[in-house]
């Protein structure tokens, strides 16, 4: 039937999907145990971010006892110790997850979304448009991502939304390139040509026939980008270009006083450092597993 969804795409009810989810999850854990660990870390971090107000023993900005509780090493009272201003590091790490997750997710959605759209339209249009857009992507890609982000923050100023934009823009070219390769193949398929012959509009063809077939590579690049986005956010915050203090941020909490007190109070840089490492490790493991599952060339490999 011209203009319809390709035959291999199946429609399932939500109930059916839920029924299938359990066994699929078990299969995923069995086939990709490391990916499952990564997924668990990601879920835990999301839960920590969402439930931070209930999990954190103190406000992340509170000077405990007016600041007198400064530089306490990890103990039962302060499991991750306190910083030089008497703030509970555990609470800052917990609240810091909010920023990292928020910026990581939004910037990835923004960057990969925009990159995918750019690739969809330019590649579908082909010809000169495709050439120009791809050269622009090449230019964007030729700069180190952190440099681009620093420049964007310097121009736009420091705020959470600007962080999202700066980190998101960095992700655009890689997404565009990955999605483009899929679009190139899909737009030449028979069902796309059939849809075109049947008079379907370009927009309909793009969103109804081409885009759904780009979902798999999109998911792969999005999950792979998440860890990078979190690292970039931490790097920008470390450079003093993230959200302004005293807002908790893993990257910023590695900067400044944490460096100064690194020898006297090593828990100050170590704790946020661990949070960054574990989260990025989790995202990377999970992203790798997703890529292996969705990439036909890697499917079945360990």
């Amino acid at each position, binding site marked *: 039937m011209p203009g319809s969804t390709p035959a291999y795409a199946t429609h399932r009810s939500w109930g059916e999907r839920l029924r299938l989810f359990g066994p699929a999850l078990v299969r995923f854990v069995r086939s990709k145990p490391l990916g499952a660990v990564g997924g668990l870390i990601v879920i835990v971090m999301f839960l920590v971010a969402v439930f931070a107000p209930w999990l954190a023993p103190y406000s992340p*900005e*509170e*000077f405990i006892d*007016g*600041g*007198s509780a*400064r530089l306490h090493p990890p103990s039962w009272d302060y499991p991750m110790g306190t910083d*030089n*201003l*008497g703030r509970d590091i555990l609470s800052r790490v917990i609240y810091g997850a909010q920023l990292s997750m928020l910026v990581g997710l939004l910037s990835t959605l923004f960057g990969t979304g925009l990159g995918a759209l750019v690739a969809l339209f330019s590649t579908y249009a082909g010809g000169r448009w495709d050439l120009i857009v791809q050269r622009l992507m090449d230019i964007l890609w030729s700069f180190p991502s952190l440099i681009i982000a620093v420049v964007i923050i310097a121009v736009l100023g*420091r705020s959470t939304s600007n962080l999202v934009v700066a980190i998101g823009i960095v992700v655009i070219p890689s997404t565009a390139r990955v999605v483009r390769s899929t679009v190139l193949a899909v737009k030449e398929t028979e069902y796309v040509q059939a849809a075109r012959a049947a008079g379907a509009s370009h927009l309909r063809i793009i969103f109804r026939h081409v885009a759904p077939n780009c979902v798999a590579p999109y998911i792969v690049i999005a999950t792979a980008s998440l860890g990078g986005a979190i690292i970039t956010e931490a790097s920008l915050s470390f450079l*003093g270009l993230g959200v*302004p*203090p*005293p807002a908790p941020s893993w990257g910023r909490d590695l*900067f*400044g*006083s944490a*460096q*100064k*007190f*690194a*020898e*006297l109070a090593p828990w100050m840089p170590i704790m946020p450092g661990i949070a960054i490492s574990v989260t990025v490790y989790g995202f990377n493991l999970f992203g790798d597993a997703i890529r292996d599952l969705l990439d036909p060339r890697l499917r079945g490999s360990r």
Partner: protein
Amino acid sequence: MKQNQRDRPKHLLAASVLALAVAAAPALAEDQRACGKYGGVLTTHAGEDLVNFDFHQQPTVRTQQRVGGSYNRLFRFSFYEKGKIVNDLAESYSVSDDGLVYTIKLRDGVKFHCGDLAEGRPGACTDLDAADVVWSIDKIRNKNFSRRAGYFTAISELEAVDRLTVRITLSQADAGLISKLAVGWAGIFPSELPWDRLKDTVIGTGPFIWKEYVTGAGSTTVRNPDYYREGYPCLDGVRNFVFKDPTVALANLRAEKLDINSFMQYIYPADAKLLAEKHPDIKVSLPARLWWHSIAGKVDEAPWSDKRVRQAFSLAIDRHKAIEVLGEGAGAIGGYMPPWSKWSLPADELAEQIGTADPAMVEARREKARALLADAGYAPGSLQLGWLTLDTPESLLTPQFVQEQLRLIGVEINLEVSDRGTFTQRRDSGDFQLITTSNAAGVLDPSIFYADYLICGASSNESGWCNPEFDALYARQLSARSDEERVPVVHEMERMLFDELPQVQVRWIAEGMAWQPWVMNWEDVDPGYYNNVTLEEVWLDK
């Protein structure tokens, strides 16, 4: 930590006491130490890049720290005795009976920098004369070309009497005049150098000739072979790096890559403790400096225009806790003059103004602050203000602490963290609600503190506060004949400031210096941060 700076330079008294009627005061005693060895390049650092080389126009002392070694002043502070002033380019000076006319005789044969490096710089290789001094001081007096114009408001006439004689005529006696001529800002440059060229040209008579400045890397100066003080400088040159990150600077010091860890910054109690434990041979000094942090808003804009708000802010801040937390136990709290000086209000009166460490009193003050805010129409949480601050880790400490303190009385502060360029631009254009006033003075003299920061139209008077009564008192203390006469007037000014609170003082900062054991003829006696940066007698014993 306190330091005793009660002994004002004796010559100041001599200059201001009419009874002395000095017709030709003897030259101020030199104190000097010989170079034990010649050669070597001293390495040090500053925390920021230079905006330009015009140290009169820069609010930051870091300019002075770099270019200071290329200039001399008429007088300078002793390298070894705190507060003592000795002759530099001045050979002698005399004061008229009424204290209104200073006649300064210059040294003969002093040359501005010569040689390949200085070639092409206006005034290179010329002899110093009275016209150069008049030209230089005139620039400092000119508000369009200097942030230090307030230093010399008492000068009514400045003239070159002959080639080596300068006459300064005052409209009123100025007890701090010689101090102000001795501070690092008062460097003398050739009259051939247009004022606006000081931004890009460094040429003076100082012990080191300016070689180059590389953004991000720092400055290099080399020995001036024609320096007027025979046998000096001891060093071949000075290399001043840019280390924006204090931990990098400290690491370089520990790795023996730096001889002196900056002239002003980055050694705090935690660092001192670390150095004492791991590098006991490195010398460290950590006195409370002539440097303070305060908060200012604009007195002609709400809410800072409401005195009750300013009072509430002052009451809300537990300054003792600030010393404990921010100063790591070091530093001092007080008014607008250093609390360890005779200019400060007596301790009991000061305690009334800034509170004590007693928790009950701290809470009572907060309660009073809440009441004042309520009276001013600000319910808890309704007053939200932006606070413009620099983005360096140390600059962020005080705002974060005060932010937390003000939160306790229901005031929300949003920190607007900016780099130096943006900060300066916004401060100068008045684009802020609250701002950190991180101020420093080179000399412990009320006329310098107030001239820069608090009199009407002062270059660093961020609040815009202007009180003719205060200015009248300022003039009165300037023309007083002795410090004994000045002290009560200054106390009256301090009381007025505590009543008006144009700026709310938070703390006087203790900040250390550290230097390697082989750095000889160097002592941390500079009352400011930028007066003794010529390093002409320093030598390296390695």
